[in-house]
């Protein structure tokens, strides 16, 4: 690699560029080969009888199950779309609640000493409880409705939102604050116009973690107590000994999680870019 770079002199630019393109092409080809091999080995292992078909269905069968679930209610009583909507509703309501409460709390905690002194101990007491461990208490308090599940998701998403906005705003450059103060900005103005914008990248990192957490906690919440949703579908697949249904649920959950995090990075790019333009 280094040798190739050293040889690079003016006229060789196009050759170098071609080489780069070829290498990129090779890379993507290898990616495809890897994924293809993964599915091929899986399929061959099942059809050749190396893996028990009752425990590990072939990828084609899983694919068929996914398609089938879109118009068939059996065996868990809901079509795929109903399940997806139920899960999204639960996850997003808990997640949005955590964002709306957690980020302002974290920002205030990181900026004002009095707020930190009061809220920090409470937060530190609640923080180490894994969200899943809240499930029995929340179910006893609220039953198994949307409210209960959203609250469990809220706990899982709340912690990263608070921690990141707290750290993010504490890392604000002292110079910026002093400049604002010199120019006669009031304390609330400094908080609003200097502290919050400078903490945004960290806040977004927290929101991203929160989204991942809420989507994975959702599965646990639904597996333990629900009547619809992807986690419920997986759980039904397990009790009915339908591994194809279980894997289909896992695939759909993984795919939606990836899509959600993609949407979030798009929003992040737009928002943080806007921030830059504003400061210019």
């Amino acid at each position, binding site marked *: 690699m*280094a040798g190739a770079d050293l040889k690079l002199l003016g006229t060789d630019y196009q050759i170098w560029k071609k080489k780069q393109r070829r290498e990129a092409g*090779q*890379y*993507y*080809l*290898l*990616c495809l*080969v*890897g*994924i293809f*091999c*993964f599915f091929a080995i899986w399929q061959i292992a099942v059809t050749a009888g190396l893996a028990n078909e009752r*425990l*590990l269905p072939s990828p084609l069968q899983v694919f068929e199950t996914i398609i089938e679930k879109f118009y068939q209610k059996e065996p868990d009583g809901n079509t795929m779309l109903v399940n997806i909507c139920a899960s999204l509703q639960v996850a997003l309501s808990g997640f949005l609640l955590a964002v709306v409460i957690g980020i302002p709390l974290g920002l205030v905690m990181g900026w004002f*000493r*009095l707020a930190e*002194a*009061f*809220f*920090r*101990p*409470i937060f530190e*007491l609640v*923080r*180490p*409880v*894994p*969200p*899943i*461990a*809240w*499930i*029995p*208490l929340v*179910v*006893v*308090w609220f039953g198994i409705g949307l409210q209960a599940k959203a609250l469990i998701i809220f706990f899982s998403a709340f912690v990263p939102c608070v921690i990141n906005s707290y750290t993010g705003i504490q890392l604000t450059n002292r110079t910026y604050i002093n400049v604002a103060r010199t120019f006669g900005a009031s304390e609330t103005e400094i908080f609003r116009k200097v502290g919050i914008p400078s903490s945004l990248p960290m806040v977004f990192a927290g929101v991203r973690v929160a989204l991942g957490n809420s*989507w*994975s906690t959702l*599965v*646990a919440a639904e*597996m*333990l107590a629900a009547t619809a949703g992807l*986690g419920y579908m*997986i*759980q039904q*697949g*397990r009790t009915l*000994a339908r*591994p194809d249904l*279980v*894997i289909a*649920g*896992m695939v759909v*959950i*993984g*795919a939606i*999680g*990836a899509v959600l*995090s993609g949407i979030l990075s798009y929003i992040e790019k737009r928002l943080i870019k806007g921030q830059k333009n504003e400061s210019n």
Partner: protein
Amino acid sequence: MEKKKNSVMNIVCIILPVIAVLCIAIGWIAFSTANPRLMPGPVEVFQRFIRTFTNPVARVILPGHIWASLRRVLIGLIFAWIIGIGLGVLVGWNKKVRAVLGSVLELLRPIPPIAWIPLVIMWFGIGEFSKVFIVFIGTIFGLIVNTSAGIKLVDKINIDVGKIFGGNQRQILTEIVVPTALPSIFAGIRTSVSSGWTTVVAAEMLGAKAGLGSLVTKGWQGNDMALVLVAVISIAAIGALLSVLLSKLEKVVCPWNQI
């Protein structure tokens, strides 16, 4: 004047945390006396805690349950560390491996660890092995991603220096690349411990004979909320303890990570 204001501020900042904790305690007591069936009070929880020693749940006292959970996490984590960091180094270092293996890992990574639990239970039952395997599978992807990201971040100039001084591939890897990537590897280890702990609790809640997660389920099914709270508090305490231990360890293993 300014000095006086500061000292008042300091005193307030010492008192406020105490008030906050008192608020929680009073809120808990008030809620539990108003709804004794929904939430046991602190005294009741403490009595239940004592009773886990005199009257063991499932013939195991509380430390036994704690040890059952910890052992599962530890065994799963050790395997995940060895294999995950090894694979992460490979994926980060070699471009071809990254293309072939990295793409498959990217495909499997978005599946949440908890979603693996039903499948693993179907495959291996609810025995010890399946718990360890769930911890393993729930933590390995994060480890691989963190390690390979750290390896990719190594400054190319450092590698070139190693080459100029006649280091072979293995020397460059073990003496330049891995030490540079160590903070990022350690970040992966920290995340793996906390997510492993959460995952094992979830796995035990879905079916186990011993362990803190099984205590939660037992209390829940037996309508024994005090036992649930004892288990939840123990889970939280041990999770907090693990994270403190790890940040101490981080200072020893990679001191250059501190600013």
